[in-house]
């Protein structure tokens, strides 16, 4: 059962506001794909259209080649966490999963299994009204996993989680991808996806800005740059710029050199008898790569919280 999620030329407008504007991308099995953009970029709208909740004005969103609404027992094809608060506060956690299981013909033992999987066993018979946001996130994730689906969609799953929870969810995302599932995770913070996403779809104002593997993105952002750690900062800058390199200082005693190979930099520093403790290829962070991208797109700032989604 291969279940790629395919979005083609998707357009969705709410009154005068264009939420999604001709968006196309594919979510592949065995990968964690990050859907990244600031709040209001159209991430949640795209996910709602994929799940058949909102109807697209134009374009299609298909799961394994079929629209969501035509799936038999859809939560066994795609599991989704849209909003961790979407539970009646008077209901017990287990009962919330139980009705979902009933509707999809999933046996009760699977309910207890996913509760255990997300670490809610001790709270399973408590009413959701008393849950912290982190616990609700876990319950929502349990609901997404209930049907053991080959594709999963998580909208901002890291929200409200403590550092331990964040680590847990990163591990979970990796594991789900390793099991061969297609995983789509949205976030308005690129750093949240560091270390978990394999692929990125970056959107802004409903349009696609980038659709790239994390590897390629980082390589592009790091390309040709060398990090040099030295105690003689100004002398090193002089020597290196004389050879045509551009040099930036990012930290006390760390220079980022563009336009020279690592060997050439070592040779120059050694020839001038300047001390250095480390010369290595520079590795950009995902956040940095993202900022480069969005600066090029010139449309929005990733740092500002902006409109609510």
């Amino acid at each position: 059962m291969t279940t790629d999620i395919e979005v083609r030329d998707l357009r969705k407008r709410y009154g005068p506001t264009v939420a999604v504007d001709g968006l196309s991308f594919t979510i592949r099995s065995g990968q964690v794909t990050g859907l990244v953009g600031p709040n209001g970029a159209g991430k949640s709208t795209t996910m709602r259209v994929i799940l058949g909740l909102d109807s697209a004005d134009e374009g299609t969103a298909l799961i394994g080649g079929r629209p969501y609404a035509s799936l038999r027992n859809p939560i066994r094809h795609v599991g989704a966490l849209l909003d961790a608060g979407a539970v009646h506060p008077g209901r017990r956690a287990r009962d919330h999963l139980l009705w979902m299981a009933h509707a999809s013909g999933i046996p009760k033992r699977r309910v207890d299994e996913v509760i255990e999987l997300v670490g809610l066993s001790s709270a399973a018979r408590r009413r959701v009204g008393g849950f912290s946001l982190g616990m609700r996130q876990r319950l929502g994730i349990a609901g997404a996993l209930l049907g053991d689906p080959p594709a999963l969609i998580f909208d901002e799953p890291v929200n409200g989680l403590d550092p331990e929870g964040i680590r847990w969810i990163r591990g979970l995302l990796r594991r789900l991808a390793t099991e061969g599932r297609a995983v789509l995770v949205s976030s308005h913070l690129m750093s949240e996806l560091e270390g978990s996403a394999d692929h990125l779809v970056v959107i802004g104002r409903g349009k696609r800005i980038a659709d790239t593997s994390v590897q390629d993105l980082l390589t592009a952002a790091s390309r040709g740059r060398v990090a040099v750690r030295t105690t003689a900062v100004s002398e090193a800058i002089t020597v290196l710029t004389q050879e045509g390199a551009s040099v930036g200082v990012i930290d006390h005693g760390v220079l980022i050199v563009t336009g020279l190979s690592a060997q050439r930099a070592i040779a120059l520093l050694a020839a001038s008898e300047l001390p250095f403790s480390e010369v290595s290829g520079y590795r950009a962070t995902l956040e940095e790569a993202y900022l480069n991208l969005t600066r090029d797109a010139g449309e929005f700032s990733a740092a500002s919280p902006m409109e609510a989604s």
Partner: protein
Amino acid sequence: MTTRLSDRATAEGRGRAGRVLLAEWTKFWSVPRWVMAMLAAIVLTVLMSVLSASGSGTDENAAIWDLYVPGPDGRPVQDSFHFVHQPASGDLTITAQVVSQEGRALDASTAEPEAGAMAGLVIKESTEAGSAYAAIVVTPGDGVRMDANFETVHTGSTEAAPRYLRLTRTGATITGFESADGTRWSEVGEVDVPELPDTIEVGMLVGSPDGVVVERQFGSTAVGQTSTISAAEFDNVSLEPGRTGFWRGNGIGLPGVGQFTEAQGRFTIAGSGDIAAYSGPGDDVVQLSLIGFIVGVVVVCAVGVLYVTTEYKHGMIRTSFTVSPQRGRVLATKAVVIAGVAFTVGLIAALISFQLGQPILRENGFAPPAFDTMSLSDPIVWRAITGSALLLALVAVLSLCIAVITRRSASAITLVIALTVLPLLAGFGLPAGPAGWLMRLTPAGGFALQRVVEPTEHLVDPVAMIAPLEGLVVLLAYAAGTLVLAGWLLNRRDA
């Protein structure tokens, strides 16, 4: 993830509709507040029914024998008319032509006879008011009919006078005929009156029921009566086999009222009064023990609305529609669940209310002979009890659908209350005609499902003016109409 879900493993022998039903039922019972509210609906309904029964009273029985006489079966009847008669034995046939009818009120003159004024032929056990009889009469309003022992047993043509009428007695069987010309006869029907002795009183009757004036004020009705008198001319009177005894005139039930004259075989008879079973003031003893449903309806409405609006409020409707993308099916299933719960609540509340309320009402004067003793062995009581349950079920569906349409608790609850409870209050203050139409046009008419007595305009209660079936139709129409609209909107709108 140890449980591998295969299609086979998850089929579990249930159809899709059945699984969605189980899911929606789980959603309902897993919110304790809703379950408590439905239990509270039972308690509150019973409590208010009992309180209301304790507070009701009537002195109908105290005055009943002043106005009514015991009929052949002992139940109160009105039996007053002018009777021009003679005794006769064995099988016989009496024939006469009612030539004309006219009438007026006793205290004022009106040229028109009351629509119910009667002129016709009667075979009666004796001249005692309340004795057994069979009669054929013609009325200006309803044409020809045959009555026996204070009930109409057959209806004939709708022709008014002039009309030929005939009664034939063969043993205990009386057969009625009518004719336009006295030669071509058609049978109206036959009836057995076993109470009739061999020697009976046979002859002509003229009666004219009281005019009824109903005055409505907010919260009360006053039923006034005006006596009327009617005069009819009879011709071609014959009594077979060949006896023409001496005709005597008697005011049955109303001694001294009415008169007759005879000239060349032509009789002019004036009479007043009615021949009818006691119909009471229209109070419905079964409905009176189920008054608390007005509270039950409000509680069920609130739960029906919240069953939907909490899903919108918390965003859970999206989870519901990702689990079951067929939104129409989700709506229909919700309707089945809430209707089933409300029906059960209604059934239990009606049974307890009825059982507790009846003895209280009997103690407060709603007792025989003016009021029949009602019990669970009467099928009509079960009609009212299941009708009450149906009322709650349909109000629940209506609430659910209006909640889907508005998506807001406050507006949905307000709208349902405005449609189902407000018209009842407004109806108290309206004249009978508009009050009746208000019941026929709003789901409030559904309360008529709790009634077992014929519709009447003599009561304050606007629901009393329409038949249970009319109430059911209007309530069903609202529930079905909003269901269709809600389904259409669900599929059209983004979740």
